[in-house]
């Protein structure tokens, strides 16, 4: 256990980086995913097409490929950002596609009858989306979005591959010095599990809180 005490500082800092990446990319993915869904169900064909293409692209390209492209190809194109922000942006763009799919499944739970009722009352399309469809779709999508957030947190580990010093990268570094892979990566794994548990429990609580009374 000594090895963890001795390197507690860097490890905690790395854990902080992991959590920070997950939180910022998570919030951004939820916002962006909502926008993508709105475009996807809008009556404007161009927007629908773009949103569809967005989701298809990010769902069908591996995250590691995207990370490597962003870290090595973007600087070539003249866009030079620090590593961690680059990874956060890629994570947010990537997971937004999954968030959009989760919300879209929520949209499908809102009956067409309620949408017709809102149109019959004189709501514009935007009002009907904002007041009737989206609030109910988000409620139904809480648990699926929670699962996307757990996946996102696990996916932050891939940032280690492009040089971001987060939990997995720091564990790897520690292992190079101590050569105790089983112990070190088991502990790292348990920490990821704890993070997933926190997100899962949080999603469960939010779901109960916003549930529609029956």
């Amino acid at each position, binding site marked *: 256990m000594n090895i963890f005490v001795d390197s507690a500082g860097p490890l905690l800092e790395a854990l902080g980086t992991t959590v920070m990446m997950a939180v910022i990319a998570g919030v951004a993915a939820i916002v962006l995913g909502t926008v993508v869904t709105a475009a996807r169900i809008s009556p404007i064909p161009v927007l629908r097409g773009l949103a569809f293409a967005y989701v298809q692209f990010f769902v069908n390209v591996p995250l590691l490929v995207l990370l490597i492209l962003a870290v090595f190809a973007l600087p070539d194109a003249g866009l030079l950002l620090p590593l961690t922000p680059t990874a956060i942006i890629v994570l947010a763009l990537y997971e937004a596609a999954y968030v959009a799919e989760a919300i879209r499944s929520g949209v499908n739970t809102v009956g067409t009858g*309620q949408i*017709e*009722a809102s149109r019959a*009352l004189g709501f*514009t399309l935007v009002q009907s989306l904002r*007041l009737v469809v989206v609030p109910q779709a988000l*409620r139904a999508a809480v648990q699926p979005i929670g699962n996307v957030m757990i996946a996102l947190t696990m996916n932050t580990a891939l940032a280690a591959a492009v040089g971001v010093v987060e939990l997995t990268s720091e564990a790897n570094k520690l292992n190079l010095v101590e050569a105790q892979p089983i112990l070190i990566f088991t502990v790292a794994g348990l920490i990821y599990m704890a993070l997933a548990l926190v997100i899962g429990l949080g999603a469960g609580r939010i779901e109960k809180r916003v549930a529609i009374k029956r």
Partner: protein
Amino acid sequence: MASSSTGTSTPAGTATAMVQLTDVQKHFGSHHVLKDVSLTIAAREVVVVVGPSGSGKSTLCRCINRLETITSGTIAVDGVDLPAEGRALAKLRAEVGMVFQSFNLFAHRTILDNVTLAPITVLGRSRKDARAEGLALLERVGIADKADHFPAQLSGGQQQRAAIARALAMKPKVMLFDEPTSALDPEMVSEVLDVMTSLAGDGMTMVVVTHEMGFARRAADRVIFMDDGRIVEEDTPADFFDHASSPRAQAFLSKILPH
């Protein structure tokens, strides 16, 4: 019916026409659901539309606020032709109340919120005024004690009365009822019909698609009988029920009246 009204201006002869359908045709794919439908509904008139299922009566009702688009012909509400989808149509829909078979209350909002949402959002009423009027309407339909409940906590009859209050909150010029009691348990039908009857008594212009012949007799000024997409017969309730002239209406009545 021979007059060639232009729709946008109110012709002298039909000064009180609230809803006017002229030569309306409607297709669902190759299925011709409304055939040559022309109908003028006066202000304060209560028109009950009856007919066998699949006769096009629900479609007729849904065309009046353009929830269904028509293939050809014109539909005007209070002298204004139905605009294409957009703000103008939203504005017109705000003046036409609609009550659905399946209530369609907003599941995530309380009953009072359901009633106040459109007045606040669409008409720009203050929250305070909208709530006061909403409560008065819930009082009128007899469910003021359910104001803070959610739709799923109410019985079907209570939900439908809430839906009527929601439509009335917009102070509509005309109310459309699309089989409002068809999804209700039998013991809840009368509580909804009572509200509708009182509304008719207050002079609301109403188009009611229903199978409730008792209501038609009691509240209708005119009964329209539809079959196979056409208006086959229109008459006062007394004449329609006691001596319908067309064989199809007679056959329809003989099937439903004994129950």
